[in-house]
């Protein structure tokens, strides 16, 4: 039963990643692309989590936690670049 549920969950999250990729490609400003990157990392946390629920390997929970901790880092770095783009504009 958890197999079918995680199959559906993989489908939903994969569709979400596809929509996020469309926004990253189309996104009119740099902020939209940064937000898309962050959404992509959160969706991949959900993907790793549902694989942990499927396989019962709790090692993947630790991987998801560390990805959640690291998801702030590229956003902070790119926002720093965005703040410096004010001088370029």
């Amino acid at each position, binding site marked *: *039963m958890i197999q079918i549920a995680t199959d559906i*969950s993989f489908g*939903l999250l994969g569709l979400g990643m596809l929509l996020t990729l469309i926004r990253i490609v189309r996104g009119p400003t740099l902020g939209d692309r940064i937000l898309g990157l*962050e959404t992509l990392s*959160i969706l991949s*946390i959900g993907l790793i*989590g549902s694989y942990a629920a499927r396989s019962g390997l709790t090692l993947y929970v630790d991987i*998801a936690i560390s990805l959640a901790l690291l998801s702030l880092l590229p956003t902070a770095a790119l926002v720093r670049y965005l703040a410096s783009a004010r001088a370029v504009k």
Partner: protein
Amino acid sequence: MTIIAVVLVLIGSAFGLLAALGLLRFPDLFTRLHATAKAGPLGAGLIFLGIAAGSADPLVAVRCALGIVFLMILSPISAHLLARTTVRAGLSAPNITSIKNIDNSRRH
């Protein structure tokens, strides 16, 4: 407990899809932040809750609670950082969202 885990994982992934749909469909960076910064961590947190419900180990439940806490702390921080920098730098899309309560003279 398996039923609860299945329902929580399904609801969580549906929230993840809704976050991505809001990111695609909303007209502006700030409305997109409104969609993804709330629905995304909620979906991932519900999936963590589903793992905690599915496994009988209390240590796994503690780790899942830790993951939820990290998500709930870090996602508003990064959303606020992005929104504030966009407003301060004047890089927002023209006049879709009206912003009236930002004091631009204070720059920390």
